[in-house]
């Protein structure tokens, strides 16, 4: 790890992450604004009949929406959080991870950085550390804002433990996607295709995870997607399987980190 690189990456990407903090918190706040209105109008009761139709129910399930849990403040928050924070956050993480590496090649700054007295491993570690700090900061901001939003928009008590469970799983999910981003960038022969590949990976997994929830027969299939490992049905029951979920995310991240190291160490930097 090289502190010089680490600090420079923090500095260069701080602004982007701050903007994303604002976007995610803003989206969550925007949705929470409607919560009192939605409850008051009893719109969920009306919709319930409509959404008992299997087609619409399937569609909602794809996006992780469960009508029953939507009526509680936490359920409502977590549902939207799953769409905004999880999906957008994962995109931010994978693009940041891949960009930290691939942009050096695309913008040809790798020739500057890699002729400095640092090993390729140190370059990777410093950039990964920067990603860890930035993504953790982003999550902290969103979670803290979540606490505030829940306090502002509901008087009813909610399950803080459940909220924290969703939060740490989302955090680990993003870190894992960040690591995937590094691996994609390390594997890419030419840096230009990296962004597209990363978008495809996240969106693809998101859709697979959503579709798999539709029916019982496809449930197991969903676990090829990291998104499926975040427990979003937390309101319906107690949180379960915390350890193996954590182990999965950490394991996935560790594999990608290891893979990136192996590939990047001997990679030809073509400019």
């Amino acid at each position, binding site marked *: 790890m*090289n502190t*010089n690189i680490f600090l*420079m990456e923090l500095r*260069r990407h701080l602004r982007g992450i701050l903007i994303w903090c604002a976007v995610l918190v803003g989206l969550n706040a925007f949705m929470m604004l409607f919560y009192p209105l939605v409850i008051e109008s009893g719109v969920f009761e009306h919709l319930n009949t409509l959404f008992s139709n299997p087609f619409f129910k399937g569609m909602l399930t794809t996006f992780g929406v469960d009508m029953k849990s939507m009526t509680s403040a936490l359920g409502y928050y977590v549902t939207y959080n799953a769409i905004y924070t999880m999906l957008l956050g994962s995109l931010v993480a994978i693009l940041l991870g891949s960009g930290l590496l691939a942009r050096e090649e695309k*913008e*040809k*700054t*790798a*020739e*500057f950085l*890699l*002729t*400095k*007295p*640092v*090993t390729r491993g140190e370059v990777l570690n410093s950039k990964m550390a920067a990603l860890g700090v930035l993504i953790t900061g982003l999550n902290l901001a969103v979670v803290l804002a979540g606490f505030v939003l829940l306090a502002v928009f509901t008087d009813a008590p909610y399950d803080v433990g459940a909220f924290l469970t969703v939060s740490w799983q989302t955090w680990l999910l993003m870190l894992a996607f960040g690591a995937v981003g590094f691996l994609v960038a390390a594997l890419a022969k030419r840096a230009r295709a990296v962004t597209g590949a990363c978008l495809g990976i996240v969106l693809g997994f998101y859709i697979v995870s959503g579709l798999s929830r539709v029916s019982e027969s496809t449930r197991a299939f969903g676990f090829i997607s990291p998104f499926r490992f975040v427990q979003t049905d937390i309101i319906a029951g107690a949180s379960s399987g915390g350890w193996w979920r954590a182990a999965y995310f950490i394991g996935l991240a560790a594999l990608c980190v290891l893979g990136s190291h192996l590939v990047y160490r*001997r*990679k*030809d*930097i*073509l*400019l």
Partner: protein
Amino acid sequence: MTDTAHRLAIETRGLTKFYKKTRGIEDVDLEVEPGEIFGFIGPNGAGKSTTIRTLLSLLYPTRGEGRVFGLDILRDSKAIKRRVGYLPAEVNFYDRLKVGDLLAYSARFYGVVDGRRTRELAERFKVDLERDFTDLSLGNKKKVAILAALIHSPELLILDEPTGGLDPLIQARLTETLREENARGTTIFYSSHVLSEVQKICGRVAILKGGRVVGVEEISSLRQKQLKKVRLSFSKTPEPGAFDLEGVHELEVKDRDCRFLFDGRIGDLLALLAGMPVNDVTLEEPDLEEVFLHFYKDSEDE
């Protein structure tokens, strides 16, 4: 490969790099003595940058080996880079950073935190440390890269086309700075496709063509066989055999115009021309391609 008593600044043995099937360099053998200014010339695409990038482990050699100050280019790359300053042919730095911040970032890698040398060099090369790097012109970007390469007073400077984009004044300042650095013991590896530029500053020169080193020459001996391109225009068609002079090569006569390469004594040529009805004469330095074709015809016939 090297005995400890005599460590070469750069030494390669059979250094080869293929990009999949495409040849980058093949069996490059180099020996650069510590303290010398070593030229590395060849036409575009000869493999100059590939050699340099392999030495700096941006590229992984297909086979062969290389050492810098006796250190292996693969295993000891970090230790090598601590002692090397590199000026790339094409300069790219991070966006949205001030020149001063970029240079400080670069210097910190070598543990240089004192900004005095940066300011000295900035003064000398007229670099504005407060400007945003992205806004600089090509030549000014190059100047920033020169500073970045010099800031930590490296023992070996590797320069890839260092004068590209620089105005003549700054070029001269660079040459002067390189001489000073060299006088302090810095070894300089100077890659260029401009022969005259290399001739000005280098002691020895390796000539690269088609990915292979086709010759290593002392500049002084290259000077002796200095080649001139001569173009003449006469008021009437010259007689056949009029240029029967030692050192005339590849003579072409077309009506009243004629051209040839000349590596004989200039005095003899002038004496010959004095007695001829010459309308116009151009004496110029041939481009590198012509020099290679002339001197290294044999090595090409493989």
